[in-house]
């Protein structure tokens, strides 16, 4: 029997939202204003809410609104305002952790999903939250065996959510892992008063540290300075086992990440799920997807994460991304000619040559990848173009004025 697994992608901007849709996401999650776990970086405003949900509906995908920070009394008015607006716009569900939000969302009949911020790790906790939630996002730190047990017990005990259907289990399949259990880290708060649980994490765990003996001032030689920065989760190489465990939704981390990450990761996992469903999931394909996943933002992969057991030593070893490719902003689209599928681009920096790989991103375009086989300047074909040139290139699909143009370079 085919297990219909939903791929849920992060949308921190309209560019990422459209990239997720292009890559085949079944659903997206997003936040508005400050009451979500990315209040510092990627965010939409309340004004964008209707548009986002409308885009999702017209593309036949589900939209989930994250409202999962710690909530203080002074947040209640805003929280209710966001819920009311989301209800009116017909959001698919809200992802919550605070019971105040859970209670209010249910009172106005919005579907509720329990956030990973609740670090739900056992069947009794699942049962408790099933009174409010139709989907439970499990803690990232469980093993596959523990996940399977929970999924089996839901069936066995016939645990249903408020919608009357069997409770669904969601887990993270790809992206950043926290050194602490999600929702229980106070490092950023304790050091900078910037609470991770208000979405303001400064990620000081990601930096390198020295261990110094205060008495002698001697530095302890350690082979890993990044003692608190885990590698990113990657599950594509055993996704069949994950699906077998009975989970219904696979969530991709990264509302703060760029559209090329959203596109590539969504596409790889979507293809993997389809391959599993049609029995063509193979080592060759896995290797191809892994190569693709390495081209976009990653801190190195912890293949398996906690799901395959708590392996030690999976630390990032670097600050920032280990992606094998990088993007360099070079200009913007100034015109698009639909008749012959040509884009006119103004180069603001850098040098372009034939056979370069380009990326065009925009709030409506999402993402478009182009292999440059011809560069035209003033009706003449040229081999190179540089800063201040206006060039015409053939594109694969419609792009739009003011879309950003990036040159994709192999990182040596």
């Amino acid at each position: 029997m085919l297990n219909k697994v939903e791929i849920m992608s992060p949308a921190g901007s309209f560019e990422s939202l459209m990239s997720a849709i292009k890559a085949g996401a079944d659903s997206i999650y997003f936040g508005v204003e400050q009451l979500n776990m990315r209040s510092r970086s990627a965010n939409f405003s309340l004004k964008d809410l209707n548009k986002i949900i409308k885009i999702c509906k017209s593309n036949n995908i589900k939209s989930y609104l994250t409202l999962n920070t710690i909530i203080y009394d002074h947040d209640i008015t805003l929280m209710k305002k966001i819920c009311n607006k989301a209800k009116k716009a017909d959001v698919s569900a809200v992802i919550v952790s605070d019971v105040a939000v859970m209670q209010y969302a249910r009172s106005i009949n919005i579907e509720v999903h329990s956030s990973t911020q609740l670090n739900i790790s056992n069947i009794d906790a699942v049962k408790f939250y099933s009174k409010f939630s139709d989907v439970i996002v499990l803690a990232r730190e469980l093993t596959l065996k523990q996940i399977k047990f929970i999924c089996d017990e839901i069936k066995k005990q016939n645990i249903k959510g408020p919608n009357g259907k069997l409770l669904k289990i969601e887990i993270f399949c790809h992206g950043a892992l926290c050194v602490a259990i999600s929702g229980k880290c106070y490092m950023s708060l304790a050091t900078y008063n910037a609470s991770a649980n208000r979405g303001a994490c400064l990620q000081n765990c990601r930096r390198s540290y020295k261990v110094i003996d205060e008495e002698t001032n001697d530095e302890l030689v350690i082979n890993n300075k990044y003692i608190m920065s885990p590698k990113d989760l990657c599950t594509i190489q055993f996704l069949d086992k994950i699906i077998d465990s009975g989970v219904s939704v696979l969530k991709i981390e990264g509302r703060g990440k760029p559209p090329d990450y959203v596109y590539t990761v969504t596409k790889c996992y979507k293809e993997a799920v389809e391959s599993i469903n049609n029995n063509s999931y193979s080592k060759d394909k896995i290797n191809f997807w892994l190569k693709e996943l390495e081209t976009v933002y990653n801190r190195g992969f912890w293949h398996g994460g906690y799901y395959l057991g708590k392996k030690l030593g999976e630390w990032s070893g670097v600050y920032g991304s280990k992606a094998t490719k990088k993007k360099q902003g070079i200009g913007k689209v100034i015109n698009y000619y639909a008749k012959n599928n040509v884009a006119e681009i103004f180069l603001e920096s850098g040098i372009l040559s034939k056979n370069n790989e380009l990326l065009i991103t925009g709030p409506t375009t999402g993402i478009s990848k182009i292999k440059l086989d011809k560069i035209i300047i003033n009706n003449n074909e040229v081999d190179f173009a540089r800063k201040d040139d206006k060039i015409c290139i053939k594109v694969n699909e419609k792009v739009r004025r003011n879309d950003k143009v990036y040159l994709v370079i192999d990182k040596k």
Partner: protein
Amino acid sequence: MKIVHYRNKCIGCNACVEIASSFWRISKKDGKADLINSIRKNNDIFVLEINELDLEANLIAERDCPMNIIKIEK
């Protein structure tokens, strides 16, 4: 001297209100901090002239704001 508040990026953590409640309060409208009696300079920036006596508490508010959007200009 003056306090400059770049309000748009406020995450409503309440730190400034806890520290200097006669200067800061959380807006009932959008859950972000308001600099009481300040003058709006443009969409996002609010300014309030203060004197030496008001400085101490607001310097702590400046230091503890997780978004670094409170600036004291002397």
